[in-house]
């Protein structure tokens, strides 16, 4: 038994299953982060005092992390493009690079958290810190998820290339779409938490 349209696109929708699936998933992610952003707004509007992010957090570190994440978005799309052009080795190299950039991001994040904890800034300290840790923590989990996916496609998952190159390329594209979304969330988190 074969499930139709796993690789090729269904003519009337122009999409394959995974493509539609990932976008639906992202629609639900929009609602998840949307709810958190709206909580942020509600809490902030009702708060008597609200610190400016850079009074508590380090903007340079976060700016560095922004660059890391944006770069990783480029590497993942390069991985897809390389596969499209038929080169598995280059594709895997870019996947590895993406993974490493994700790791760098997480390490920097860990450093930031650690620093906060050492200076006694815990989530329970204030609403600002509470929402900061919740949002970045949840975002971090998404990064972690992405890293696991890339590690898999770099390693055992890449065997698929030899039997079904097109399917494998699609998978990288889909994983990439997810990764860009994670990047996109960060693009909002950065100003909202660190700058405003």
């Amino acid at each position, binding site marked *: 038994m074969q499930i139709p349209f796993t690789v090729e696109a269904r003519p009337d929708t*122009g999409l394959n299953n995974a493509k539609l699936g990932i976008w639906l998933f992202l629609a639900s992610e929009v609602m998840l982060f*949307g709810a958190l952003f709206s909580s942020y707004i509600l809490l902030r509007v009702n708060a008597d005092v609200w610190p400016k992010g850079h009074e508590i957090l380090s903007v340079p570190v976060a700016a560095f992390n922004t660059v890391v994440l*944006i*770069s990783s978005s480029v590497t993942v799309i390069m991985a897809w493009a390389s596969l499209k052009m038929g080169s598995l080795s280059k594709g895997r190299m870019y996947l590895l690079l993406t993974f490493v950039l994700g790791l760098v991001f997480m390490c920097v994040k860990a450093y930031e958290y650690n620093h906060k904890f050492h200076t006694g800034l815990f989530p329970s300290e204030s609403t600002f810190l509470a929402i900061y840790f919740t949002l970045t923590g949840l975002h971090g989990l998404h990064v972690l998820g992405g890293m696991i996916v890339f590690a898999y496609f770099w390693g055992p998952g890449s065997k698929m290339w030899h039997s079904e190159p097109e399917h494998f390329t699609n998978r990288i594209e889909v994983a990439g779409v997810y990764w860009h979304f994670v990047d996109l969330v960060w693009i909002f988190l*950065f100003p909202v938490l660190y700058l405003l």
Partner: protein
Amino acid sequence: MGESVEDIKKHVRVYIGVFVALLVLTGVTIGVSYIDMGHGVNIAVAIVIAAIKASLVAAYFMHLISEKKLIYYTLILAAIFFVGLMFLPVGHSLDEIRI
């Protein structure tokens, strides 16, 4: 998408361009945040820049610009409910019973 290698190479150049744009915009956000233009304006500027960056990512990296209608419909639906989500809690806290 039956694109040729040439097409892909063209894409790659676009990606690099977007990358550079994103880096520049990141710099701009940070720079602008140190200029005090009034609280509201600062927020608005930062959100607008973030929205531009997000659109770039979505349009080019996520291939949204060449995506099928169905995906647009899904996203429009999510966007509508997202807007609802954004404004109504605030609406509520502004429309409290007062004497």
